[in-house]
């Protein structure tokens, strides 16, 4: 069993008067993929947004309880959120490259975080990030073309390259394949398999099959509560909780 990278204890999230998460206790293991599943609005995205304090951008959002990364309190008011987000990267449902060149998409993060001071250092970061995201071979001869000129699947890998360019420890993926075709999805899944050797990954997905394929641990959320968490194989072959079983077998009302 790998070390625990992220630990949440009695984590509650409120959007105004509406409570979105209820006492969530969930540990994410280092260099492992954790899949979060559950019906829309169940709190899985809210949970991952607590890991990089993305909920800060919502004024009415209030977070109580504890969430730690390597023992560091993520909710600490004095925490430098920019440096937290350097350590915790995020990839969204729809690919969202900057309206800039492929090269600039990757080099932007390292630049603002003060990494890669010389052009050759930046070149190296861009090349490494694109190689790690399995995109290098496809774009190496057109790095100055706009990121938006790439196909959907390529754009998503560009976003993954952008996330890893600042050398994070954790990558959050919020339904990263839902806008992609099966081939592009397969490429991302293969990439996740490779990336987990270096990074701790959390993926929110509506595809059960994808959760089985990519993750080692799965958590099932329902109405803001973490109903069951366990080894992925156990969850999909023989879950303990009836609600989990009803959800994954398609018996949910």
């Amino acid at each position: 069993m790998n070390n625990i990278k992220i630990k949440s204890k009695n984590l509650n999230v409120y959007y105004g008067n509406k409570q979105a998460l209820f006492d969530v206790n969930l540990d994410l293991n280092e260099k492992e993929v954790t899949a979060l599943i559950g019906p829309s609005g169940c709190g899985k995205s809210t949970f991952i947004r607590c890991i990089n304090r993305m909920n800060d951008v919502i004024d009415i959002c209030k977070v109580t309880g504890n969430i730690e990364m390597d023992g560091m309190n993520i909710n600490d008011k004095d925490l430098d959120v920019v440096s937290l987000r350097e350590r915790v990267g995020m990839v969204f449902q729809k690919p969202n490259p900057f309206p800039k060149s492929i090269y600039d998409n990757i080099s932007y993060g390292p630049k603002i975080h003060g990494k890669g001071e010389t052009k050759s250092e930046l070149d190296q970061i861009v090349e490494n990030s694109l190689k790690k995201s399995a995109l290098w071979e496809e774009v190496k001869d057109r790095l100055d073309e706009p990121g938006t000129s790439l196909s959907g699947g390529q754009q998503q890998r560009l976003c993954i390259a952008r996330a890893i360019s600042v050398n994070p420890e954790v990558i959050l993926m919020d339904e990263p394949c839902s806008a992609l075709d099966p081939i592009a999805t397969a490429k991302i899944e293969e990439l996740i398999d490779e990336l987990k050797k270096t990074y701790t990954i959390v993926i929110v997905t509506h595809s059960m099959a994808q959760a089985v394929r990519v993750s080692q641990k799965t958590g099932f959320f329902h109405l803001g509560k973490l109903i069951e968490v366990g080894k992925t194989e156990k969850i999909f072959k023989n879950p303990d909780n009836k609600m989990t079983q009803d959800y994954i077998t398609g018996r949910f009302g």
Partner: protein
Amino acid sequence: MSNEHTVKSYEEELQFLKDSLIKMGSLTESQLSDAMDAVIKVDKDSIDKIIKSDEEINKFRSKIDTQIMNLLVKRAPMAIDLRETISSLKISQDLERIGDLSKSNAKKVKPLPLDLPDELLGNLKRLGELVMKQLTEVLDSYVNKNFDKAKEVWEKDEQVDDLTYIAMESVIDFLSKDKKNLDFSTHLIFATKNLERAGDHITNIAETVCYLVKGEYLKGSRPKGKVIQE
């Protein structure tokens, strides 16, 4: 929360698979019972009917295979549905083998003399009745998803082993009295062995039912009777 699938046709497909397996089980039961009767009564007239009914069982097996393939491709079943699908595949294989063994027994009736002594057939009859009961009970455990009942069948295979041993002994005794009995005694030995093997397939089904219900395989090795140990 409802126990039915949101997708109705998925629910129907799973139910159809279960129904097919139950029908196949019931055919296999009749065939095993008919083959046993044919041996005990040396009823040569029923041989063809029994051989023919094996074709029906085989057809069910192919039909179930197709249903399973379709379910896997269309629905990618998970959890209990996955276990139900995979268990159906395994159980149908075991039922088909039991069917083959019954057919084989029916074929053994042909060379048997009509005046076989009761003491020779008595033990074989008891063995056949026990195997029959085991099959009925294991199929009940499948229908009712009854773990304890399936485990009971699994444990009781020890008795099948013991009775096989006794039935074999009586055939060998009979054979040793007169070497002229060699030809048909060999058939009876094979028929006895076939019943014991049918018992083993029934134990496989019992193991599958236990896995289906609890999602875990039975731990430890099955109690073995005399015939296996010696």
